[in-house]
């Protein structure tokens, strides 16, 4: 089994566009790593460099201890699941799964055993004789997984494998892939643009933007302590609220001022920003309507533009001092649209970002 290491990897396309300027990353053995980011951020390119489908312009890429830069894909002992599944249309499900093994000159009975074992795990037994076009999207997806599974690869690469499925099936397949990872105990690298998939499946998540790794951490850490504005905005649904605020000194501590609100924040990191503007980040669930949270210097009184009742909780779209905010409050404390609501901000969980560098100042 093997981990994957990137050392100063650069990828420049023939037309001169550099997609990945300098990538350093270490994926541990047996880890489930999710590469996530907006489209065009270089996550797919990174995955394709691991697969060997894309050449590396400079730098080194290792799988295990072996430098893989010039090793062809078939000798890398990897398996890949494509977004379009890329099933061979002229072969039956069985043939599709057996193809790689046949090429490796595996004995017939062993192929048979492996294919049937994979088909059983994935629930594909009844469809082994069918051609891919006679299968539904979810079944094709499972065939693609099965094709990768039978080879016992050291690394499993998945390129947005769920994006062609409907919402219900996607949730189902998400848990199936997670289960598969535990069962197989191999390294998984999974590319997606969907932060929910990333959060639910990854052991660690690598958030990328413009070919640069923004943060590479566990889902919980990404959520609780994002390192910059981009990560904070990308991870979490609904998105984190960003509020322009001004830092002022008040006695020994500092306050963040926006609208009528003066939020107390006694953090030394704010010292250089006194008198300057910063960006406050507040997660929707860190606004509290429950009375026990109200205290001095953490309240805002906001106007509700729109409310979405979700049953147990309610999403309120607020307008406060000209800034749009989203909050998530328990249904019994929620109010209706066009009313005002008093909310307390959980200052423990408040994030403050530098307006120019967009880096986190304190959280």
């Amino acid at each position: 089994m093997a981990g994957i290491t990137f050392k100063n990897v650069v990828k420049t396309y023939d037309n001169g566009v550099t997609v990945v300027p300098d990538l350093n990353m270490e994926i541990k053995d047996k880890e489930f790593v999710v590469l996530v980011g907006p489209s065009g951020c270089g996550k797919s390119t990174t995955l394709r460099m691991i697969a060997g489908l894309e050449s590396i312009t400079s730098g080194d890429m290792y799988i295990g201890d072996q430098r893989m830069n010039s090793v062809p894909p078939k000798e890398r002992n990897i398996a890949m699941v494509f977004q379009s599944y890329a099933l061979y249309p002229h072969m039956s499900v069985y043939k599709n799964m057996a193809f790689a093994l046949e090429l490796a000159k595996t004995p017939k009975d062993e192929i048979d055993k492996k294919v049937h074992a994979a088909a059983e795990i994935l629930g594909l037994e009844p469809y082994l004789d069918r051609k891919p076009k006679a299968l539904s999207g979810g079944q094709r997806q499972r065939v693609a997984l099965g094709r990768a599974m039978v080879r016992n690869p050291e690394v499993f690469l998945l390129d947005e494998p769920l994006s062609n499925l409907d919402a219900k099936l996607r949730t189902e397949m998400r848990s199936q892939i997670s289960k598969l990872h535990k069962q197989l105990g191999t390294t998984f690298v999974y590319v997606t643009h969907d932060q929910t998939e990333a959060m639910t499946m990854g052991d660690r998540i690598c958030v990328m933007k413009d070919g640069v790794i923004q943060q590479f951490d566990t889902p919980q850490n990404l959520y609780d302590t994002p390192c910059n504005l981009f990560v904070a905005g990308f991870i979490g649904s609904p998105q984190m609220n960003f509020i322009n605020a001004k830092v002022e000194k008040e006695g020994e501590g500092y306050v963040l001022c926006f609208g009528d609100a003066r939020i107390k924040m006694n953090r030394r990191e704010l010292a250089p920003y006194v008198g300057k503007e910063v960006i406050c980040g507040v997660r929707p669930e860190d606004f509290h309507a429950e009375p026990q949270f109200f205290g001095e210097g953490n309240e805002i009184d906001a106007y509700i533009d729109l409310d979405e009742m979700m049953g147990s909780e309610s999403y309120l779209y607020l307008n406060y001092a000209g800034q749009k905010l989203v909050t998530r409050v328990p249904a019994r404390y929620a109010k209706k649209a066009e009313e005002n609501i008093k909310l307390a901000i959980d200052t423990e969980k408040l994030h403050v970002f530098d307006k120019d560098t967009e880096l986190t100042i304190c959280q």
Partner: protein
Amino acid sequence: MDKKTSHARTIVAYIVLIFLTFLCLFFFYILIVNATRSHPEIQKGFSMIPGHSFMKNLKSVLNDANIPVLSGIKNSLIVSSLSALLATYFSALTAYGLYAYNFKLKKPAFIFIMLILVMPTQVSAMGFINLITKMGMINTLYPLFLPSIAAPAVFYFMYSYMQSSLPLELVEAARIDGCGEFKTFNRIVIPIMKPALAVQAIFAFVQSWNNYFIPALVISDNSKKTLPIHRTTVKRRCLYLLQHSEARTSSSSTWARCTC
């Protein structure tokens, strides 16, 4: 009312269709009928009823030493099948090369192939004959099918077919599965291209089967001639007969048109 008009429409449609079918099939019918009639019968005039001389006609065709029809059919079959095979396989291979790989001069290569497409065969015929003479292939069947390897029109068809129905992800999947480049082409690409290959194989076969120009230039040996050359010999002979026969009636020119 509605029923009546639709009834009338059906009748009109059938009449038109029957007429068109007649137009299409009549000449084949005459061909078959004339094949069963003797020479004087044909000269007498046109008839819808078959004669009794089919076996005699057949025998005289097969026994004509100057026109070895059977070897002509054999040569034509060999040349046409090989042409169809080479044209489709190598054009698909070329198209795949240009479609699936990125290399310098890819665009110029494409344009070059397209330029060959606009060159008529006649223009390069002299050079072609020179070349094959020097290669020692004059008066053999090779020059009739080997050039089909470079078939720009077939290439273009294959290229557009790949663009519409061969996603590159499939090729990549094959590479990851451990398939070599050539094997990928033969085991993944060719089966996907089957419909296109079939269409182009038919076209290439028919084109080669009807080709008169190059075989007439290249082949002089009677036993190596293909059918179109024999057919021309027969036609010439017919015209000769017609010009020298006293019974130069309108019916005999119909006969010439039908048989030649």
